[in-house]
């Protein structure tokens, strides 16, 4: 029996048993719909997480150098941070390190009281060099950025995040107003565009930027930095630059291996990879759920096919009597199962994409159409049909024609 004939026979049989065919398709359709939807939503979530992560750590071409050995490093704060990174270190890296485009200086502290008139809010305060906001892709809603002049003149100006705006200026325009950061007065020079929530769900807007020189001399009275961020010219190969920076800092700090470094260089890609790993674990779990759904769909096909085989004993007997071999009968039922499964699968893909698109719209995720998922779903449907059709087909092939023709 030729494949084309077998498929057309299968289609004819399915059309002439509409209720049974519909139920079989439904089983697969639900499984495939959940697979497609889950994969699309999983992918969208992953892409969104990575996007948010980039927004948080900055672009991938940045490496940050923080004080303290990797083993002892915690969250930098003014009280616990090691005073090992100096302004001169940053200058030296900018001038001497290989493959470094520019260097930003940061001196920051968390949980600083910020006041305006009778209102108080708590914020992270970053003393930063003039290039920082651009390097980290912060955009201004209004006002101006921190300039080289502000750095040189130790200006008491601040660029504030949206949380500070809501906390201190619920019904006032903050521009030009005087706020007090730890009792030092600053003028609001610019307001940042909101960055929304980070991967953990927390706000990224509870920040406040001031010139790093002002922070050092007028606010924190510290001559060391909490972070030096270097932008690399070749982010694909951060190794040589990191080595070069390490050599410069060791030399300047008089460290000779095996002595422990008093700084740690971290490449943001490593953390980004972790995030991707977490997201792909999520995708794996979702896919697992979908696979379970498909096993259920397959089981529906199998049970209904088994019933069909019993009901169609006489047909099987006739086909065997007029010359069908066991293989012919087996193939007929397998192809029937595969055909119904594929049709169900196509239905499921349509439903799944529809569902994913609606979910994406509700969750404000970017919509993704995954061609490889669709291809995979089609293959999976064929597979479900063939695998779960196997036992019914085997049963059909082994029906004794003499038995089947009596009755």
């Amino acid at each position, binding site marked *: *029996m030729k494949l084309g*004939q077998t498929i057309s*026979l299968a289609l004819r049989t399915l059309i*002439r*048993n509409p209720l049974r065919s519909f139920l079989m398709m439904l089983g697969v359709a639900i499984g495939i719909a959940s697979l497609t939807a889950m994969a699309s939503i999983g992918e969208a979530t992953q892409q969104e997480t990575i996007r948010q992560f980039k927004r948080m750590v900055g672009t991938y071409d940045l490496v940050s150098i923080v004080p303290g050995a990797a083993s002892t490093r915690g969250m930098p704060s003014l009280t616990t941070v090691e005073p090992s990174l100096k302004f001169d270190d940053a200058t030296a890296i900018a001038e001497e390190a290989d493959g470094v485009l520019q260097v930003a200086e940061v001196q920051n502290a968390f949980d600083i009281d910020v006041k305006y008139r009778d209102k108080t809010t708590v914020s992270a305060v970053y003393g930063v060099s003039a290039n920082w906001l651009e390097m980290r892709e912060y955009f201004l809603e209004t006002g101006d950025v921190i300039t080289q002049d502000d750095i040189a003149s130790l200006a008491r100006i601040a660029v504030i995040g949206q949380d500070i705006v809501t906390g201190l200026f619920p019904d006032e325009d903050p521009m030009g107003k005087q706020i007090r950061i730890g009792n030092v007065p600053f003028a609001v020079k610019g307001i940042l565009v909101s960055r929304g929530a980070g991967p953990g769900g927390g706000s990224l807007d509870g920040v406040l930027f001031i010139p790093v020189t002002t922070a050092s001399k007028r606010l924190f009275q510290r001559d060391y930095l909490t972070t030096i961020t270097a932008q690399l010219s070749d982010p694909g190969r951060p190794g040589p630059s990191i080595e070069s920076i390490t050599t410069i800092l060791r030399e300047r700090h008089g460290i000779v291996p095996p002595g422990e470094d008093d700084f740690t260089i971290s490449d943001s890609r490593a953390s980004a990879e972790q995030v991707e790993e977490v997201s792909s674990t999520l995708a794996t779990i979702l896919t697992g759920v979908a696979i379970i759904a498909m096993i259920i769909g397959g089981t529906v096909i199998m049970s209904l096919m088994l019933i069909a085989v019993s009901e169609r004993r*006489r*047909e099987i*007997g*006739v*086909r*065997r*009597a*007029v*010359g*069908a*071999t*066991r*293989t*012919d009968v087996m193939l007929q039922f397998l192809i029937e199962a595969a055909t119904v499964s594929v049709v169900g699968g196509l239905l499921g893909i349509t439903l799944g994409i529809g569902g994913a698109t609606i979910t994406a719209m509700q969750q404000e995720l970017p919509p993704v159409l995954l061609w490889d998922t669709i291809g995979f779903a089609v293959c999976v449907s064929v597979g479900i049909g063939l695998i779960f059709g196997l036992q019914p087909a085997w049963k059909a092939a082994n029906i004794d*024609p*003499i038995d089947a*023709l009596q*009755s």
Partner: protein
Amino acid sequence: MIAVENLEKTYRRGDGTPVMALKNVSFTIGEGEFVTVRGASGSGKSSLLNILGCLDTPTSGVYRLAGEDVSNYTDEQRSHLRCRRIGFVFQSFNLLSRTTALENVEVPALYSGERIEEGKAAALLERVGLAERGGHFVTELSGGEQQRVAIARALMNDPPLLLADEPTGNLDSEAGHSIMELLGELSNEGRTIILVTHDEAVAEFAQRELIIRDGLIASDTLRTAKPPASEKTGS
């Protein structure tokens, strides 16, 4: 065409006790003969026909079909023989439901491995007097018409041998009579026909009659003046 020697068929009941349905059956049937097999219920007629039709294998003995010893053929080999050499007609018609008359006739062609000849099934329907009914579903046909469709189906792959197990058993006498006339015509065209029946009237259409009793051939007689196409042997 057909030669059986010392054919035996023993079934095992559910409890393991053996039932000898055929005991030492021997005969030959020549090409073009129209033979009826008659006997009481349970005498072994269907058992014999199933073996002759390669649906079943004998417990012992030899079955030669067109000179080939097919007694020990595999299931697949027997399927191929059934496909090309043998046409079946059953008491209960055994047409596929939810399928048109024409599609039913075409079924054997699916398994012959050859291209389905355009118009062949329709020509066969015409041959059995159902030219107009090809597009009808089986349930829309009378019993006599259904049996005609079944005969057309049996002819689809042009088998030299037709086997019929009580083909008129489910029909009223008029319809039965016309089915027997049709089979008589096919016999005259040179096809070998073996027909199992209870009914003496039916047996009169054939030239030769085997009577089977308790799994043995009790008699083997020529019924009409019309000579069979080939020689015969008694048991």
